[in-house]
């Protein structure tokens, strides 16, 4: 490396401005470029004299992964340079700044915790969809856009499922941030997206209680403890935390990845449907486990070398699909509704772990005031929900895997598409009625959903 970064330095058309931050492994600089008219920052790894392996490989990993990412939850890359002159990577500047300040104010009001949690989980789900496991999620790596989306930064420890893992053979000690690192990551597994869900759980714990679940360990020995010691239940620290939120947090923090949330989408779904979160013993727990129980776990865990990692990220992501069954409950749709239900049952044979969300759309007027009750004064929404639940009963799934929702909107197709997008749905099953003149001119709901939904759509017909 011949060049050292300093204000005024010019490299590949970029001009360095003020230094914004000095971190352990890199410095961050404000930069400008005549071709790019947006605020940008340059990250320059601080390479120690001689051969500084970890920093170099971490930088290489970022250079490999970041240009392959897209969407609102990752920073846009505008340039990068190699080791010949000065290694750097230039990304758009995220105006909202780091999330660390918000974190330092924890415990936050519960409504904020829930809302922030949802945004964090969505960002991680989007990253996983792009085959990347972050592996170093911590408050300072979440930035916020003015529009509200969380942006994930710092991919130096990340793993792209489809690309070579440069870090794999390189280092023999676990890498990550101690308060949030997952047990399997401590055991040096770098292939499990569920490690990110553990880190999310640890951060939600901190947001809700103001404390880290295992404090701030400074040694690997201190990290190891989480293999057998359970954290103080959040509700013991802050009793107003609802049971469903404690359930979500503690489920994300389960030691064995197989018993944790399996996908970020699954976790996002629970955060979006609090009433339908299945409460287990975890939800009601108010004390840490007793000495004997912890001792038993210690005896097993002290010998453990690894947990089973998923075969591939794609396989893991497909493990607990969310399937929407959109159903028409009108009398003329009866036969079709039954056909949709049968299709759902067949689907469950192929996807035994799937979660089924049954939806029905209550069409509202585009303009004007809607009737919330019928002529007899019955609440229409409630009446629909009752009918939907009775339709769904025959699907025969436990409550936590079956949800029912009545959506409202002037455009039924759009309502279904929006629901599928927000809830990261994998597939929609819906019926299509026969052909009629009206539909030819006005278009059918199913055709609209097929054309515009981001997920797979299966259309059911009765002949």
């Amino acid at each position, binding site marked *: 490396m011949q060049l050292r970064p300093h204000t005024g330095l010019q490299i590949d058309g970029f001009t360095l401005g003020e230094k914004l931050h000095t971190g352990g492994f890199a410095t961050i600089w404000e930069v400008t470029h005549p071709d790019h008219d947006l605020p940008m920052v340059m990250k320059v790894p601080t390479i120690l004299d001689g051969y500084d392996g970890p920093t170099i490989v971490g*930088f290489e990993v970022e250079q490999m992964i970041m240009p392959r990412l897209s969407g609102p939850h990752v920073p846009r890359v505008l340039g990068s340079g190699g080791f010949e002159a000065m290694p750097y990577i230039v990304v758009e500047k995220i105006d909202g700044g780091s999330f660390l300040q918000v974190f330092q104010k924890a415990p936050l009001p519960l409504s904020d915790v829930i809302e922030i949690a949802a945004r964090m989980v969505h960002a991680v789900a989007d990253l996983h969809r792009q085959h990347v496991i972050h592996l170093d999620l911590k408050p300072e790596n979440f930035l916020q856009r003015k529009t509200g989306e969380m942006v994930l930064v710092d991919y130096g420890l990340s793993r792209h499922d489809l690309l*070579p893992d440069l870090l794999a053979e390189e280092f023999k000690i676990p890498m990550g941030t101690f308060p949030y690192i997952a047990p399997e990551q401590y055991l040096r597994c770098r292939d499990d997206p569920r490690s990110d869900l553990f880190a999310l759980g640890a951060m939600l714990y901190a947001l809700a209680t103001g404390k880290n679940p295992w404090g701030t360990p400074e040694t690997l020995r201190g990290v190891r403890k989480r293999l057998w010691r359970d954290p103080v239940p959040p509700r013991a620290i802050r009793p107003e935390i609802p049971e469903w939120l404690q359930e979500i947090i503690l489920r994300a923090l389960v030691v064995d990845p197989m018993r944790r949330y399996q996908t970020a989408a699954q976790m996002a779904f629970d955060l979006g449907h609090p009433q339908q979160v299945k409460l287990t013993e975890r939800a009601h727990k108010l004390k840490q486990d007793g000495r004997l129980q912890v001792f038993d776990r210690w005896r097993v865990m002290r010998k453990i070398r690894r947990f089973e990692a998923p075969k591939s990220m794609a396989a893991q992501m497909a493990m607990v699909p969310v399937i929407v069954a959109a159903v028409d409950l009108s009398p003329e749709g009866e036969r079709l509704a039954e056909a949709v239900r049968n299709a759902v049952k067949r689907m469950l044979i192929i996807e035994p772990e799937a979660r089924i969300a049954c939806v029905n759309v209550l069409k509202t007027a585009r303009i004007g005031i809607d009737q919330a009750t019928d002529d007899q004064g019955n609440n229409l929404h409630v009446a629909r929900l009752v009918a939907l639940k009775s339709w769904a009963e025959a699907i025969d799934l436990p409550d936590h895997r079956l949800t029912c929702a009545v959506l409202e909107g002037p455009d039924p197709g759009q309502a279904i598409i929006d629901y599928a997008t927000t809830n990261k749905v994998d597939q929609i099953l819906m019926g299509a009625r026969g052909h009629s003149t009206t539909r030819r001119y006005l278009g059918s709901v199913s055709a609209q959903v097929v054309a515009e939904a981001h997920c797979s759509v299966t259309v059911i017909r009765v002949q």
Partner: protein
Amino acid sequence: MRIAVLTDIHGNREAFSAVLADVAGHGVDRLAMLGDIVGYGGDPEWCCDTAARLVREGALCIRGNHDNAAAGAPEAMSSLARAAIDWTKDRLDAGQKAFLAGLPLSHEEGDVLFVHASANDPGAWSYVTSDTRAAPSFRATKARLILCGHVHVPLLASCDIGGVVRAQAFRTGLAIPLLPSRRWLAVVGSVGQPRDGVAQAAWALVDTVKAEITFRRTPYDTAGAANRIRAAGLPEVLATRLLTGT
């Protein structure tokens, strides 16, 4: 520039033509063949003529040990390879032999080095079968990317700025970034006689602008190619190994 890299065609017309058809659909700017056009397979003349035509049209072709032997040079070989080469020699005419004998042992273009076997001594035909065995190639050249064949099993290795050479796991069919901070070596695998358990022709697509390599596999008529070997009276094992890719 997008370069299609084919190597170790070994007289397998079915595999060669299937790969050429596949390459045509990928919009490449350049074709490179890294040697061993003949040997083992039942169609040395067609493969030789096709390679010669491609070279006239601007393709690059390197000489391999089987090409050398078929052209008459003494080469140490296994008895199987020897049997096939003796048969091949009788099939090739003087023009075809002259084409093979006239091929270069290596070629450097920009920062890419094309060679049949290990780059440190191309005529010694050393096998690059692991990261350790890739190290001498990196020491022998300053090229950013070394492309070779000879071993019929694909391999990707990188050499970092500290000089450490490591094999990198990769997936077939996906573009793998060749990080500018490292130098790279790819053994692209064999078109005409793959030996990694996949009975499909192996080749690679290199994009020098994006700095990416994609290892590709193309299915071909293995039964047809095996039958040509049997019809030629060559050892049966040369036919059956095509069916299993071993």
